[in-house]
């Protein structure tokens, strides 16, 4: 695939490679610096493997101070920096460039402090999402946003992409669950933004940082909000004969003012793929499946479920099955959360991430099917139906360039459709390189210029993760404004 362009590497940087590597070697331990061609190769991509670029070098710092030293040095030498967490980005958010240093935070994976009385936790940015919940699970607490890759993805990456997840319908996404960050600016300055409490004085800079895709600074520590675990939780499987019926049921449940913890949609191909992996007992004789989870006391769950089941029946639900045990619940979620990877058993795929108003679900599901069929491809649909966040998995053969091009074109058509019906290009995966060139379908040039002006306040030289988010042409810089 080569549809998405990368900026041409800066030849003057490439020619100074030895000098740059030597400077980095003075800042970190030898085990924390990767420079051989063999070893750099492993960092050339993330979970958007169709695109790859070899980095200049990879640094794996262990402390905020080391991160600051590396950024200071790169700033002084005029070198671009691409931050990387676990490299699970589906939109190429961590894909490097030939003239950039990758700053990997994998070694910074510790819990720093837990405050049960304040319901907060301070962690290093390289800790995985699930490890945060695991660290306080025994005490009855958890960190709410749960991207499907939560086993592996880091909180730093979650902050960069403002990640969501199945349970964000009730608890909000990353930005609603972060209280403060320690961040290193492009010149190496260490700043603390937000605080340890629910609100911080002054402008909501934290709101700006969350979702900025590593372009405003490198977050090295975060203070997150932790919540007490619900008394009980029960996922229920609802099988429908058509995707439209399931989509209409979702819209009706939301319309009735019910907010389950999670409302997940899978179509038949996705059900088959996930069932083969997780053996969760998903019904195989239906065209569409909703996993709806309610939580609370038994009485609360029963009451909520009774209303949901009644609405589902009005929309022709065929099978309703409640999880009967903790093991069954785990299997139901394991299947859903492994959907992307499990699709890899069947074919290569690109995973799209658009949002739409939930009322448009039936229409969009039908249109998506038409789009993918018109390219002669297959699609598996898994998504967070409750908040209208779609994840069509377009299947293709990565070793076939023609099919790869078609898959990308189909994906672009789907995202344009999302924008047309009043939705958004990205729900939770971020823009990265994948949706960069589609940003003009969402925003006018004036909108983009304003966003780039904000970006320039933090990094006017476009040094941090520069090839991402904004279309490569028409980039605003202080110089372009002056000209």
């Amino acid at each position, binding site marked *: 695939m080569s549809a998405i362009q990368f900026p041409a590497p800066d030849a003057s940087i490439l020619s100074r490679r030895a000098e740059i590597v030597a400077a980095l070697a003075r800042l970190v331990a030898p085990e924390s610096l990767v420079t051989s061609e063999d070893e750099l190769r492993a960092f050339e991509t993330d979970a958007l493997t169709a695109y790859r670029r070899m980095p200049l070098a990879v640094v794996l710092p262990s402390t905020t101070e080391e991160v600051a030293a590396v950024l200071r040095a790169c700033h002084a030498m005029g070198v671009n920096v691409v931050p990387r967490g676990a490299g699970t980005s589906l939109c190429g958010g961590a894909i490097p460039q030939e003239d950039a240093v990758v700053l990997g935070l994998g*070694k910074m*994976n510790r819990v720093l402090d837990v405050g049960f009385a304040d319901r907060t936790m301070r962690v290093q940015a390289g800790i995985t999402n699930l490890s945060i919940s695991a660290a306080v699970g025994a005490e009855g607490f958890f960190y709410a946003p749960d991207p499907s890759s939560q086993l592996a993805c880091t909180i730093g990456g979650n902050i960069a992409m403002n990640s969501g997840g199945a349970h964000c319908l009730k608890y909000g996404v990353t930005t609603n669950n972060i209280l403060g960050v320690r961040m290193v600016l492009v010149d190496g300055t260490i700043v603390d933004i937000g605080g340890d409490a629910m609100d911080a004085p002054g402008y909501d800079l934290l709101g700006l940082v969350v979702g900025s895709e590593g372009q405003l600074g490198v977050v090295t520590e975060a203070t997150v909000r932790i919540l007490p675990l619900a008394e009980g939780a029960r996922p229920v499987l609802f099988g429908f004969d058509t995707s439209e019926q399931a989509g209409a049921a979702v819209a009706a449940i939301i319309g009735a003012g019910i907010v389950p913890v999670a409302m997940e949609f899978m179509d038949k191909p996705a059900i088959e793929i996930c069932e083969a992996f997780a053996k969760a007992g998903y019904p195989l004789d239906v065209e569409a499946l909703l996993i709806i989870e309610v939580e609370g006391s038994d009485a609360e769950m029963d009451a909520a479920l009774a209303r949901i089941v009644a609405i589902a029946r009005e929309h022709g639900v065929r099978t309703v099955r409640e999880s009967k045990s903790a093991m069954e619940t785990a299997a139901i979620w394991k299947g859903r959360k*492994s959907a992307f990877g499990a699709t890899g058993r069947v074919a290569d795929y690109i995973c799209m991430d658009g949002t739409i108003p939930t009322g448009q679900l039936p229409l969009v599901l039908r249109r998506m099917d038409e789009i993918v069929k018109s390219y002669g491809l297959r699609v598996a649909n898994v998504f967070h139906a409750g908040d209208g966040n779609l994840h069509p998995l377009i299947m293709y053969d990565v070793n076939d360039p023609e099919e790869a091009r078609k898959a990308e074109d189909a994906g672009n058509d789907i995202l344009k459709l999302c924008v047309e019906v009043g939705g958004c290009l990205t729900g939770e995966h971020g823009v990265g390189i994948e949706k960069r060139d589609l940003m003009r379908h969402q925003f006018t040039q004036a909108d983009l210029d304003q966003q780039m002006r904000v970006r320039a306040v933090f990094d006017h030289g476009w040094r941090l993760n520069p090839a991402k988010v904004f279309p490569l042409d028409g980039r605003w810089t202080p110089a372009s404004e002056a000209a």
Partner: protein
Amino acid sequence: MQTRFSPEQLRDPAMQASEKILRTCVHCGFCTATCPTYLLLGDELDSPRGRIYLIKDMLENGRPATPQVVKHIDRCLSCLSCMTTCPSGVHYMHLVDHARSYIEATYERPWHDRLLRRVLGALLPHPTRFRFALLAAYFGRPLKPLLRPIPAIGARLAAMLDLAPSRIEPRSTMEGPAAFRPAAPRRARVALLSGCAQPVLKPSINDATIRLLNRLGVEVVLPKGEGCCGALVHHMGREHDSHAFAARNVEAWVREMDGEGLDAIVITASGCGTTIKDYGFMFRDDPAMAEKAARVSALAMDVTEFLAKLDLPATARATGHVVAYHSACSMQHGQKITDLPKTLLKAAGFVVKDVPEGHICCGSAGVYNILQPEIAGQLRERKVANIARTRPQVIATGNIGCIQQIGKGLADAGNPTPIVHTVELLDWAHGGPMPDALAEAGFADQPERAPAVAAE
């Protein structure tokens, strides 16, 4: 994932198999999270995804392995935790096995590394030599402080001496070749793998297995000609040697299968079990061996798998001890046996506790604790601390390597909790003698609940 192999490269069946594995990987990164070395080192190169990428690059380019690639592949424990985690079904085991034999063929290791590997490969798979080596290690122990500072190899030699037991077990009176017939009417006939290191280090494990199976009416044969399963040299990439070991076992068992017949090949070391269950794959392209090896693999069973097929009677004595069950990687990831051993222990009256972070390796991993003492040591400390959190009276596991490794960790931590094989506890509960490790830890033996079992 996209691959770039030429049609010519793909004519090699090993390359073809690896290409298929690489195509399955979608580079999602889930595997990094449950990889012990990534957990400790935080470098993607020391994670399954990083290693898969290194291997892919090495194989595609057909270049000899470089020291950098070898470093990261060597650090892999082959614990196969990544295979349990992988949603895409990437067969990492076969890929890393291929990489190891590719490294062995194309890379010359430093002299001390070569020497150590050769020594280990020459001693461990051969019980007589191994017993002699343990004796030498016993007398060599006082030299440890002198060895440790030697550059390049000192830490590994010290680790080797550290792991050698402080007591050499007497030889078992139940060694093969032999057949042990039950007193009760025979309901099945099985071959039991004698193996190599286990009968030297802990002969009590197979002794307990034979007693227990006999009591249940199962005839146990230790056929002539079987020995090391080949895993040890296999993990060093020495395919030729591992296949030679495997072929000998296949022949020995097939003779029994075609002779008096076998209902199972029972294995009490899960590390060996994983390898023997893979014999079919090992010999897939060998017309003379393929069918026989596949038959052997199909009949291979961990002892707990076989016991679960029998209807175990009520236990002969009251137990009730709190047991921390440590699931060996080769058990839970290699053979996907997770609940069976716990179910058997619970049925025998023990109170079974799961170890927190139970999916992470203890660092034993064959001879990994000798070749990579630093990482293995960190994993061992982590494991012993996690086990201690369950406050057990005894630790049970199904693999000799883990018993040695965790035993060493317990001793270092001054923790007196005994560690035994699952089958030793089951044998005891069902009327066998109390395991030595429990007696030494001061456990009071439980009286037999007499008449009911007197029938046997």
